[in-house]
């Protein structure tokens, strides 16, 4: 038989169908209904991995999310690689291909294991830090090899072939976990009429019922589960979601659910009807009430050699036998501190295999299950424990001895029992992870020997999640929780009609975390607490001896509960050991904080559809298609795609080539300065301001005066925050007595609108004024250069005479037959007309301009040329030449400051604070490199004395720097301490490569300081 550990009958697998899969290149068989773990155990595969730090062989320990060892790499192709998969949670499918994540050259013969064996004594906690820290410069080299040796899987090198979804949902009651408590809770809330979402991380709903020995209403527990699920699926407002993990519990009952839609079918989602299916889906659920029915994890006992393959959780042994029809060994020794562990021995014995003995830590075990075991003739050794497991690649011997729990010592002779499996149970730890995500620390319950969730508003724990374990009580407790949750959402309370479950007489459990050994913990063989991170009891003891007293520090020093494991199996034992070493109680030591996600989530599910072209919206202007067709290179400005420059073809030695940016910009600049250029300026923010108090409002938010701006006129304005620092600038035009149009920088549009609103709504609500964004409604094209007027004259009915349409005027009329507003504002220093038309007419106007513009040499230019042209004129870009620490005075723009305005505008008061009045503040100046071929680096630091010892006092920095084809020289804008008083002085700019550039401080206006070119 190919599956030596598979039982002939029993369990929920379909033996009529075979599934073939490979593990580490070896072919095996399993059945539908198997997990990868159950199939491996059925095939007698003992070693599934090598451990993280010591490279010890490891086998399957658990049957669910708490599995620390069975972490595999999935995927039959490169694109389908999935790291970090728990074999215990992965459904088996045909041709599944899995590999161990650790172990070199392979898990059976591991060379790293030698390091673990020989070096084991020499690898205490903090080993890497202590050993490899010096010299610090070598750490990166060490780290590379350490990481390679200790991986937890790898990401695919090819692009993910799969697609992922997000879904936003609301519900009245979200029930997490579909075991007896969750099913019962969903039933109560569903019957009441609440919108219920019931999620469960497993392939099949039912939780512990799927492997239970108990009867409900005199039938197998699974029958009841099926009945409830049938009733739930018939309820219209109940959504059942298997294969879905509630991974994060966030503020105000916001829960993220990770639904795995096709991971049980293949590593890459299959096609259905020609379309690729969604691989997994992230549900973002806002729940009225959350019922936490996440159950409890069994705690293993911590004894020497407890990580040798063949050491398992007692509950997991039962699950493999009862749910999957797999007995993971032949000869069992059970170590337990409670009655529940006995189920494993009973199931094992009923499966026809030998139970060697039960080592029960209690002096007088007398529960019902204990009696059943004794009745079967199983040897029960009271007051004892397995103190050590022996074996190389599989358990061979269990060393059992009487122990004194109080005294933490072995109190009797050691008996060696031959066996191949040791099951252990140290009781249960409620799964409090989700409840802790919200920041509430769990509370220790001495009676339950576990942490239970502390109150979270809108959340009710039920069943095992808060320490109710007896099946009948769990079902009743779930019903009560579901009914109460429904009631809290406004639905009627439900009367429970609970099924009949026989109560079991149970003996009290005893608290046992670390089992004593003959040798002291620090000298004895390794006792593992956290197997995923290879943390031993000795490591925790050492950490406490080295002065780590806070459990959070112990965690970080030893890596206890780190990573993808999040302390599912080891946390409580680890805290208990820390408490013992520190001479404190567990509640005094406290618990660490669990964080989302509960189990690993693929990045694809987090990202959803927000990748590739859907990563962020792209905004296009009305003329975008023309830019594309005319070969524009684009620059991202916020979400906008703006033409950066328009490279043209040039003749070259062998055919044609495209201009470089430098060449294109030189050509575009000359066109504007000598002929006429055109810029798509549609992205500038435009805010329509209306109301009787609009003018008054402008006077308060701008630094300059607005009282007398007449309709038809335009004014430049600076906006400050109340700390006196410039944050945006732009022009505002008076459209009518109560109507203005404000322009903002492209990136500042939304910020400025919110700025206006906050002042209006919170500070000056009495002002009658309204703001609306009209950025997208109007397209803007700037026609600028000496020939601009001639070109405009061919296309508009507006009188362009220089005396009737002056600089800083705006006129309404038609351009190319389309209603337009034309503004004579200039960001280039040349004669300029900014044509604003309704966006949907813009392409027509743009093309008309080119149809007429050819003879004038009309040249499209992009943002790079715009920057050169504006910087030559000393025009600032807010956010580039300013950084939130620059006042209007620092910019030398006294002309734009209305100190004598009647109201105290925003920023005014701050301009007289001692710090803003300083004369040695960084002030804006121009810099002219002594060598005209030098283009200074933006951000380069300015120093006054290049021979000063390092660190040199830094006196300023370059904010904008370009090469000017007009000046035939590099030039820059900069802020320099006391710069306004240093005209003509030389400053130095030391560069990274050792060069030191020299530059002269000059006026920031490099071209046409009197503004004659724009004012024609």
């Amino acid at each position, binding site marked *: 038989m190919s599956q030596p550990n598979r039982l002939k009958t029993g369990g929920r697998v379909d033996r009529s169908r075979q599934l073939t899969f490979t593990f580490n290149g070896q072919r095996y068989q399993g059945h539908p209904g198997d997990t990868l773990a159950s199939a491996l155990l059925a095939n007698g595969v003992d070693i599934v991995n090598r451990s993280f730090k010591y490279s010890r062989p490891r086998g399957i320990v658990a049957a669910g999310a708490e599995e620390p060892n069975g972490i595999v790499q999935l995927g039959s192709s490169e694109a389908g690689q999935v790291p970090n998969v728990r074999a215990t949670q992965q459904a088996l499918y045909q041709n599944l291909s899995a590999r161990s994540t650790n172990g070199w050259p392979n898990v059976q013969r591991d060379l790293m294991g030698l390091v673990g064996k020989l070096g084991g004594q020499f690898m205490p906690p903090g080993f890497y830090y202590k050993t490899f820290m010096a010299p610090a410069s070598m750490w990166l080299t060490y780290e590379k090899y350490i990481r390679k040796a200790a991986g937890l899987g790898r990401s695919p090198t090819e692009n993910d072939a799969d697609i992922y979804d997000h879904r936003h949902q609301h519900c009245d009651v979200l029930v997490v976990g579909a075991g007896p408590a969750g099913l019962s809770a969903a039933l109560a809330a569903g019957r009441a009429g609440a919108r219920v979402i019931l999620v469960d991380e497993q392939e099949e709903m039912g939780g512990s019922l799927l492997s239970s020995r108990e009867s409900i209403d005199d039938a197998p527990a699974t029958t009841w589960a099926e009945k409830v699920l049938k009733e739930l699926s018939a309820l219209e407002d109940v959504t059942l979601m298997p294969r879905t993990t509630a991974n994060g519990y966030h503020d105000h009952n916001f829960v993220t659910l990770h639904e795995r839609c096709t991971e049980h079918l293949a590593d890459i989602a299959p096609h259905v009807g020609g379309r690729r299916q969604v691989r997994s889906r992230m549900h973002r659920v*806002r729940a009225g009430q959350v019922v936490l029915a996440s159950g409890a994890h069994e705690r293993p006992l911590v004894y020497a050699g407890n990580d040798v393959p063949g050491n398992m959780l007692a509950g997991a042994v039962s699950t493999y036998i009862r749910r999957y029809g797999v007995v993971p060994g032949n000869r069992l020794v059970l170590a337990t501190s409670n009655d529940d562990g006995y189920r494993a021995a009973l199931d094992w014995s009923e499966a026809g295999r030998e139970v060697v003995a039960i080592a029960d830590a209690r002096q007088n075990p007398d529960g019902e299950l204990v009696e059943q075991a004794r009745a079967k003739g199983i040897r029960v050794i009271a007051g004892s424990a397995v103190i050590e497991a022996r074996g190389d690649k599989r358990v061979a011997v269990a060393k059992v001895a009487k122990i004194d729990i109080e005294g933490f010592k072995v109190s009797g002779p050691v008996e060696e029992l031959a066996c191949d499996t040791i099951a252990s149970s140290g009781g249960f730890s409620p799964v409090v992870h989700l409840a802790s995500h919200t920041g509430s620390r769990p509370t220790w319950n001495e009676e339950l020997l576990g942490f239970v969730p502390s109150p979270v508003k809108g959340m009710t724990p039920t069943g095992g999640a808060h320490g109710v374990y007896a099946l009948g009580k769990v079902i009743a407790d779930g019903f009560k929780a579901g009914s109460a949750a429904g009631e809290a959402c406004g639905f009627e309370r439900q009367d429970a009609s609970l099924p009949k479950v026989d109560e079991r007489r149970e003996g009290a459990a005893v608290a046992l975390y670390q089992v004593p050994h003959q040798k002291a913990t620090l000298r004895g063989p390794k006792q593992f607490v956290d197997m995923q991170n290879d943390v031993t009891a000795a490591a925790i003891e050492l950490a406490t001896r080295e002065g780590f007293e806070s459990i959070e520090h112990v965690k970080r020093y030893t890596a206890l509960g780190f990573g993808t494991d999040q302390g599912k199996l080891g946390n409580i034992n680890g805290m208990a050991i820390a408490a013992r070493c520190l001479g404190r109680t567990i509640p005094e030591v406290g618990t660490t904080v669990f964080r989302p996600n509960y189990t690993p989530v693929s990045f694809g599910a987090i990202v959803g559809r927000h990748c590739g072209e859907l990563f962020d919206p792209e905004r296009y202007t009305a003329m975008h298609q023309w830019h594309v067709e005319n070969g524009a290179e684009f620059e991202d400005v916020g979400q906008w795609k703006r033409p950066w420059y328009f490279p043209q073809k040039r003749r070259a030695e062998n055919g044609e080539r495209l201009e470089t940016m430098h060449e294109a910009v030189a050509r575009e600049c000359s066109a504007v300065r000598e002929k006429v250029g055109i810029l798509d300026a549609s992205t500038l923010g435009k805010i329509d301001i209306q109301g009787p108090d609009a003018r008054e409002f402008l006077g308060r938010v701008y630094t300059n005066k607005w009282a007398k701006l007449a309709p038809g006129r335009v004014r430049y304005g600076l906006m400050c925050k109340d700390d006196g620092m410039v944050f945006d600038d732009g022009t505002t035009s008076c459209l009518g007595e109560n109507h203005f149009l404000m322009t903002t920088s492209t990136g500042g549009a939304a910020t400025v609108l919110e700025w206006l609103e906050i002042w209006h709504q*919170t500070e000056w609500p009495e002002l009658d004024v309204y703001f609306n964004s009209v950025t997208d409604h109007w397209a803007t094209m700037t026609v600028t250069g000496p020939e601009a007027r001639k070109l405009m004259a061919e296309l508009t009915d507006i009188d362009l005479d220089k005396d009737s349409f002056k600089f800083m005027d705006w006129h309404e009329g038609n351009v190319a037959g389309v209603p337009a507003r034309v503004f004579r504002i200039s960001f280039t220093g040349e004669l300029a007309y900014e044509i604003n038309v309704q966006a949907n007419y813009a392409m027509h106007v743009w093309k008309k301009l080119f149809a007429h513009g050819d003879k004038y040499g009309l040249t499209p230019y992009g943002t790079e040329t715009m920057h050169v042209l504006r910087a030559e004129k000393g025009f600032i870009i807010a956010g580039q030449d300013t950084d939130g620490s620059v006042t209007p005075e620092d910019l030398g723009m006294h002309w734009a400051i209305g100190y004598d305005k009647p109201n105290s505008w925003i920023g005014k008061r701050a301009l007289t604070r001692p710090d803003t009045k300083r004369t040695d503040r960084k002030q804006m100046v121009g810099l002219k490199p002594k060598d005209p071929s030098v283009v200074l680096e933006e951000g380069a630091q300015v120093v006054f004395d290049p021979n000063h010892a390092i660190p040199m006092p830094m006196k300023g920095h370059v904010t904008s720097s370009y090469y000017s084809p007009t000046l035939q020289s590099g030039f820059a804008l900069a802020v320099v301490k006391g710069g306004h008083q240093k005209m003509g002085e030389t400053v130095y700019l030391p560069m990274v490569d050792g060069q030191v550039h020299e530059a002269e401080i000059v006026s920031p206006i490099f071209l046409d300081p009197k503004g004659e070119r724009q004012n024609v």
Partner: protein
Amino acid sequence: MFYIFCPYCGEHREEEEFHPKGQAHISRPADPEATSDEEWGDYLFFRDNPRGVHHELWVHAVGCRKFFNITRHTVSYEILEVYKMGEQPSITAEHYAAQQGAASADKERNASQAKHQEGVRA
């Protein structure tokens, strides 16, 4: 992620629709020129950072664009009330402490909480 009731829209909406704008009820001095540098500096730069009840200004940025106030507990993140601009909170730190003090015997913690609420300058 918060679930916020917008008092203008009259509906609960996801936090993604809102922007927080800092501490509420910071009133700008009526006559800024009459303030001393210290008073102006206080207005500009100093904000409370309480452990407990906090009044905050928020804006329904991609909704109705209205500003409003939220009273929020900075430990539990519970939103205790929302109210429109120009209105006063009905739940304050003192009121909340009194309520909690009556409900639980944990008076000592409330006292230390009150101490924290005096702000960073204390």
